[in-house]
């Protein structure tokens, strides 16, 4: 279904559209997603929950239906108000693998994504990288530096993750606003390039 924005009643003063834009911060369990969102958000990260219905193994014969349990999965998000009409939201994906089914709900219509990588648990970043590549969501990879972890060079991390050479990659410390800012700016640059390419392609 499409929403029409331009059918305002005649006489209504023209106003800029209200635009929420969504960014996703993904990565494995404990990779620093909440920390990253908190470093950039103007409000302390908010927590919201989505319900998940799991069909139990036990079948309730009396009611002729399968026993269902409803649990919730939490996600954190932050907000960055650009101006009265433009608001950026940063959503952290739930870290646990079993919430993979929620990714479409979180990621549909995302402008871009950041994949946080903990080099001690590289394998935990595979699902995010695969997901954004498959869905054509522009993304950047940020390698979080945790104390006491082995330093890997970015080229080695890129190879290990199987990230294509056109995907920007950087190091960061999610605890510091300045560092998190650079990651988001890298992603925004990438979006500018993509928008320019699209504009060039539509000019015949």
């Amino acid at each position, binding site marked *: *279904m*499409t*929403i029409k924005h331009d059918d305002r009643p005649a006489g209504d003063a023209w106003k800029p*559209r*209200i*635009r*929420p*834009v*969504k960014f996703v911060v993904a990565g494995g369990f404990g990779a620093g997603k909440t920390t990253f969102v908190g470093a*950039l958000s103007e409000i302390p990260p*908010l*927590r*919201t*929950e*989505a*319900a998940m*219905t799991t069909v139990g193994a036990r079948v309730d014969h009396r009611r002729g239906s399968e026993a269902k349990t*409803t*649990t*919730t999965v*939490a996600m954190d*998000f932050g*907000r*960055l*108000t*650009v*101006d009265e009409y*433009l*608001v*950026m*939201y940063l*959503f952290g994906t739930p870290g646990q693998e079993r919430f993979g089914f929620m990714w479409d*709900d*979180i990621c*549909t*219509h*995302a*402008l871009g994504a950041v994949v946080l990588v903990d080099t001690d648990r590289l394998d935990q970043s595979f699902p995010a990288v695969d997901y954004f590549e498959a869905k054509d969501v522009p993304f950047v990879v940020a390698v979080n530096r945790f104390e006491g972890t082995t330093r890997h060079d970015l080229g080695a991390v890129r190879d290990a993750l199987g990230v294509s050479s056109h995907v920007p990659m950087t190091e960061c410390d999610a605890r510091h*606003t300045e560092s998190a*800012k650079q990651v*988001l*700016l890298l992603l*925004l*640059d990438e*979006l*500018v390039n993509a*928008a*320019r390419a*699209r*504009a060039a392609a539509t000019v015949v």
Partner: protein
Amino acid sequence: MSAEPPSKGHGRTGGHDVVRPFVMTGGRTRADRRDLRIETMLTAVPGATTSGLSAEQVKLLRLCQAPISIAEASAELGLVIGVTTILAADLVSEGRLEVHQTDPVEIELDVLSRMIDAVRAL
């Protein structure tokens, strides 16, 4: 749905009410509007009345006096995302709420520049 009256505290996890919401939505677990996403912003249509609305819908409509996303409204109301979405979908179809969103493929360069300036200024 179970005939048991929803008891307070039953099925609650982390402050969010899991069972009662499905009573609030008349048992529905999915909104029939696919255009309502977590970041979608809502605003109350000027002059929208609260007649015939449930207490939760009244609260939602009040929150939407200023633009607010479904995620923020959910956090504010203490409801799971799916329930807020269903409550909002009804208000939208009744013409009480207006929907605002951005399709990533139509994002303009000037909008990106405004975001870049805002992030640099942090």
